[in-house]
């Protein structure tokens, strides 16, 4: 960290020297017009732009057919209860959300566990091949779903897992990003603690439970949120491998709400109601756990 800081200090020194408006800046607290009074309005505008789509989504879900074509159309309608009820009761959205929940929780717990194992092995074990393995794991980031989809379907069918919870959980259990993030984090745990553990003759299991986990609480929470969002938003794979509506997940269920467009069913409002329902769990988690999220994503400055 110190080298970077020194570099930074040097840069800022030179910035200060070449900054013609140095005195002026101090007086008015501005440079290029960026002062505190301007920050809030800017944030309002920018954040507002980013929030606008969800606003539209919610408004449309309260309307009867949900056709909004101009700004004045964005007044809330009175069909909210009707639409949400229809989604949940008539289309069984509750069941879809439950399936998604089950799937996501299993994935999160499973992924977390085996990624902690893997990261621990990579960081705390002296074995010759571990860099290779790390790259092997990272490499998977380049293997997207559309590529492996058809052979994967055959494989799952051969295993007899089609239409089961196994099919939509096990293939997701390996995570390159999680291992990467955990590794980063483990590398930042002070060596003093690690060495003390070694001196105390602590075995790997104890080490993991009594040292790693307590020291990684917020990171574990942070990656769990990320993994949950990822699992929850999966569409393509569950669409293909789950055959019965009873086992289906919300993302696919959303399509059911859309209706037969060729047959003239316009159901934007229903789709948006379903979308809001689908959005709530991951959004709630992100809001609840935003502090651990922020802590997770500190890339180590080395």
């Amino acid at each position, binding site marked *: 960290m110190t080298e970077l800081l020194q570099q930074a200090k040097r*840069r*800022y020194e*030179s*910035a200060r020297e070449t*900054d013609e*408006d*140095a*005195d002026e*800046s101090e007086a008015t607290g501005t*440079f290029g017009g*960026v002062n505190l009074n301007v920050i*809030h309005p800017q*944030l309002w505008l920018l*954040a507002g732009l*980013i*929030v606008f*789509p*969800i606003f*539209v*989504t919610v408004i449309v879900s309260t309307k009867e057919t949900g056709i909004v*074509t101009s700004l004045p*159309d964005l007044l809330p309608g009175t069909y909210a209860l009707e639409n949400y009820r229809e989604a949940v009761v008539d289309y069984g959205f509750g069941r879809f959300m439950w399936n998604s929940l089950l799937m996501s929780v299993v994935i999160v717990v499973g992924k977390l566990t*085996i990624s902690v*194992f*893997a990261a621990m*092995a*990579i960081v*705390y*074990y*002296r*074995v010759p091949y571990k860099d290779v*393995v790390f790259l092997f*794991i990272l490499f998977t980031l*380049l293997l997207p779903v*559309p*590529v*492996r*989809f*058809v*052979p*994967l379907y055959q*494989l799952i069918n051969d295993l007899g897992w089609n239409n089961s919870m196994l099919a939509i959980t*096990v293939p997701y*259990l*390996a995570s390159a990003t999680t291992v990467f993030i955990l590794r980063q984090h483990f590398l930042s745990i002070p*060596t003093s603690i*690690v*060495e003390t*553990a070694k001196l105390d003759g602590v075995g*790997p299991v104890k080490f993991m439970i009594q040292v790693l986990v307590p020291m990684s609480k917020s990171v574990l929470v942070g990656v769990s949120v990320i993994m949950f969002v990822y699992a929850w938003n999966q*569409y393509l794979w569950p669409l293909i491998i789950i055959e019965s509506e009873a086992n289906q997940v919300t993302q696919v269920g*959303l399509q059911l709400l859309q209706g037969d467009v060729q047959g003239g069913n316009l159901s934007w409002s229903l789709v948006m109601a379903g979308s809001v329902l689908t*959005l709530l769990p*991951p959004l709630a988690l*992100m809001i609840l756990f*935003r502090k651990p999220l922020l802590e*997770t994503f*500190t*890339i180590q*400055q080395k």
Partner: protein
Amino acid sequence: MSTREIFDSRLEALLLLAPTVAVSLVFLYYPTALAFQTSFFDSGFGQAPTFVGFENYVSLLTSSAYHSSVLISVLFAAFVVVGVITSSLYLSFLIHEVDTGQGWYLISVIWPYALPPAVAALVFLFIFHPTLGVLTGPIESLGIELDWFNDGPQAFVVVMLAAIWKQIGYNVIFMIAAMNNIPDSLTETAQLDGVGRLRRLVSVYVPIMTPTLFFLVIINTIYAFFSTFAFVDLLTSGGPSNATNILIFDLYREAFSYFNFGVSSAKSVVLFIVVAVLMLIQFRLTEEYSHYGA
């Protein structure tokens, strides 16, 4: 760093790594290898594949339409990466600097990350549809005519903006975390010395944040190439005139609309190579930059 390696049982390491490696092998590498194998065959819907050797690859290499697709994808990724990083940097900085309401601003900026891509695309369509869009009226009164169903470059811009908007949240999380790590002393000194905010961001913060930024460049590149499918599918279907026909959309369509699995497997191999090469270049560049710390 070797002082961290406090265990040396190979067996234990093996056991710990086994689940991740096994799942990766069985469910990621193996199907990919099969798909790779498929690229040497010609296969239609439900028909037995016939071996054609490198024919699929040759036809890709000689197809100017495919060359355009590669070029467009690279351009698209470049714009998206730059767009995401600069806008996220600016937003993160604003949030970092502001004195109150940080939590709310943060939430309002990162929420698109939780949105399913298909819903995101649909909502974007709602807002920017050339004739039915909610914001179309106001935008046209600013003098810009929205015609991205017929105008290629405009369609490219629209899809690009959608992709950037969705990814800002993920970047902001990382950047704010990094900014929070910058010692207050440095910030205070800068302020006392009268270094302007923007200057401070660019000349002081960014260099400190380089590891984070390089990581994000890589993540955003992977996002731009692999995760932007829904936007193209729902907004433009690759058009007009293939202006938004990025590789991932093209290969998906080849596989699941045209059912040409042989050709689409070849396309996915090419995509994989393109991204791998870009990754390699990025790694090389970051190696150069981070050596000042060594």
